[in-house]
Each structure stands twice: as structure tokens, then as C-alpha cells.
């Protein structure tokens, strides 16, 4: 038991690793901000494309979405980081992560937005257009607000997934939270830094996960 505490919950080592993990956390948060922001924008555009009446927009969008939903994000990341340099395109780890996860996330966010937009009854659009709103105005003032509300739990759970996903950046040596923790582990031969990282992830994500469950319960009742 004391062995267990010593190896996994060693407060001394955790304290030692704390500054390093904090730096890693900041990079993780930066990464999240960029990736979530880009993913939301890309996802919305893709969703609009996938729902477009024009087949020239529709099928490329659907193809893009399905392609990047089928590829594991880590494979994308390795491909972008180690494969693209062969084509003369060398990216920093941070940029490689941003590009790879943008491709992955925008596909996932697109599916959520698409479901949301489809959940808004057609009559809403017709009513808005009948009152003289333009297509764009109808979308931003009438359809999207309802769409987002209808899929809020899914948007949230996708956001949680993105935060978790950023831990994969450690594989390409981007010194985000998990990379820093694993670094500290290999230096100290002690798993406490990994546990500390896990606790930090939990502190950020547990409240969100609870919220999602509450939301889903609320939807189920109706």
C-alpha cells in the first residue's frame, strides 16, 4: 500500500513536477482554443455544404466528413507530421497538431451541426423567409440558434472529446500537458506526474461530463 502511494500519489514528486505540468497545461489550453475554434467554424461550413441543394457542394462536403471520420486522429497526425515532409511540407509539432485535428474535428462538428440544422422544422425557415428575411438572416437569426440549442449536449461532448484528443500531441513531442507529465515520469521513474496530469484533466472535464449527462437526462424526459 505504501509502495502504491509512493509510486502513484507521491506528493513530493507531484510538487516537483507541478511547474512543468503547468507549462504543459497552458500549451494544452492554447491548443484547445485554436483547435476548437477552427473545428467549430470548419464544421459549420461543412455542415452547410453537406445540406446544400447543389451537388457540387454537397458531395465533396459529405465525402470530406466521412473520410476524416473514418481515419483515426493519431494516424492523421502522424501522416501530417512525418509524411508531409516527404512532399516538402514541414510543419512544427504545434502546426501539425492544429492541421490534423482541424481535419478530424471539423468533420465531427459538421455532423453535429448537420443534425442540429435538420432538427429545426422547415416551417421555421418558411416563416422567416415569408417575413422578408434573407437566406443568410434566416440562417443566423432563426435556424442556427434553434439548431445549436437542440444539439447543445452533442456540441459539449464533442468539445470534451477535443480536449482529450489534444493529449495525442504528446506523440509528436509537443510539450503539452501529457507530454510534460510523461517526461517527468521518465525522469523520476515515478508515475505520480501522470496521475497529477490525470487529475488536471479530470478537474477540467468532469464538470462538463456531468453537465452532458444532466442535459441528456433532461432531453430523455421530453
Amino acid at each position, binding site marked *: 500500500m505504501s*509502495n*502504491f502511494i509512493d*509510486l*502513484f500519489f507521491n506528493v513530493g514528486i507531484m510538487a516537483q513536477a507541478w511547474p512543468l505540468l503547468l507549462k504543459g497545461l497552458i500549451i494544452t489550453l492554447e491548443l484547445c482554443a485554436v483547435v476548437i475554434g477552427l473545428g467549430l467554424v470548419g464544421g459549420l461550413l461543412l455542415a452547410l455544404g453537406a445540406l446544400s441543394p447543389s451537388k457540387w457542394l454537397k458531395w465533396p462536403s459529405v465525402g470530406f466528413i*466521412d*473520410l476524416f*471520420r*473514418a*481515419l*483515426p*486522429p*493519431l*494516424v492523421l497526425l*502522424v*501522416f501530417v507530421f*512525418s*509524411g*508531409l515532409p*516527404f*512532399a516538402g511540407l514541414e510543419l512544427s509539432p504545434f502546426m501539425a497538431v492544429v492541421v490534423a485535428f482541424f481535419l478530424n474535428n471539423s468533420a465531427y462538428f459538421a455532423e453535429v451541426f448537420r443534425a442540429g440544422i435538420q432538427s429545426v422544422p422547415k416551417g421555421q425557415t418558411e416563416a422567416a423567409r415569408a417575413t422578408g428575411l434573407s437566406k443568410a438572416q434566416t440562417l443566423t437569426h432563426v435556424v442556427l440558434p434553434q439548431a445549436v440549442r437542440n444539439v447543445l449536449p452533442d456540441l459539449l461532448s464533442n468539445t*470534451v*472529446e477535443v*480536449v*482529450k*484528443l*489534444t*493529449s*495525442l500531441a*504528446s*506523440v509528436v513531442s509537443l510539450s503539452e500537458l*501529457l507530454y510534460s*507529465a*510523461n517526461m517527468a*515520469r521518465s525522469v523520476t521513474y*515515478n*508515475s505520480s506526474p*501522470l*496521475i497529477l*496530469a*490525470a487529475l488536471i*484533466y*479530470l478537474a477540467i*472535464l*468532469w464538470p*462538463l*461530463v*456531468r453537465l452532458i*449527462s444532466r442535459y*441528456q*437526462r433532461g432531453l*430523455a*424526459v421530453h
Partner: protein
Amino acid sequence: MRFLDTFFDGAVMAKYLPDLLSAIVTTLWLSAIIVVGGLALGLVLACLRTLGRWYLTLPIVAFADIGRALPPLVVILIFYFGLPGLGINLSGPMVLILVLGGVLAAFAEEIFWAGLTAVSKGQWEAGRATGLSFAQTLFEIALPQAIRMGIPPLVNRALAITKMTALGSVIGVKEILAVSSSAQSFSGSATPLTMAALAYLAIFLPVVILSRLLERRYAWAV
């Protein structure tokens, strides 16, 4: 043409095809165990939760929350590098099965549970009023409806988690990504990475398309 040589080099493809094929088999059996085990465990947990005993509900909810909030890679590293310190040596595939199976179980429990709470009270009462026991009502009436409601999200979640078998490359599991990464560094060509991407597409694209069909079918059923 340089592009083709770099990413679609026929000689490299032929050379590494056998390795890749055995890696595909590894990915497939790992995925199968993770999906079957994870769904089964999630189902059992959701059923236990219906008993409404706090000493069951509390650990189940905690497990489901933590499983959904922690990045799997963190847990994988803790299991793989931390547990040997306690004399527990798990192989790479074992770690992958335990962690990803557990994560899928956490999500599946929530999905089954959301389905069970969405089955109306009247269904339970109709079952009990016709002399069915609690267990019979659960298995014959509530659970079939809950599972039906859960199929589209379960397929999506199972897909997302089986794609994470690529994380095995970090702990020496000879699955598709690991084999093609090492082939890439040996051959000095990006072609093995292309092969990996194609292999993943061959496995997962059908599932993505299946999930679209399912979604449409279940949308009609409502």
C-alpha cells in the same frame, strides 16, 4: 510524379504488404474484443444501476464519469508504465483492451442508461401489472427499447473508440499505425503511411456509412 513516388511507391508497397496485413489482423481482433467487452460491461452496469441501490449507483456513475472525462492515452501510459512498479506487468495489447474496453463501457453505460430512463413509467407499470417480475420487465420490455434508442450513438462511439487502437503504437502493439510508422522510417518513404491510411479507410469507412444508414432508418421510425 515525385508525389506518386513518395506516397505510392509500388516497390515499397509490395515489400511491406505482408507486415501490414498481419497488423490489420491485429487491429481487427483488438477492436472486436474491445467492442464486445465494452458494450457488454456497459450493459451490465446500466442494468445494475436500475436496481437503484446507492452502493451500486455511486461507483457506476463515478466509473462512467471518469471513463468519459480522462484522455485514454493518459490511462494507457499509467497502466503500461506505472503498474509494473506494483509488480503488475500487462502486455501492450492487454493494456489497450482494458483501457479502451473500459472507456467504451463508460460511454455505453451512459447511453443504455439514458435509453432506460427514456422508457416511460407506463411501460414498467404495464409489465408489472401483468405479473412480470422486475427482471422480466427489465429484460423483455425496458431494455429492448433502450437498446434500440441507443444504437446510433453506440455505433458512433464504438467507431471512435476502435479507431483509438492506433494508440497501441505508443506502447509497442504491432497494429497498423505502429507497423507502418516503423516501415516508414526503415524505407525512408511516406508510402507505408499511405498504406496505413488506406487500411484504416477500408476498415472504418463502411462503419461510417453504416452509421449514416442507421441514423436515417431510426429517424424514420420515430
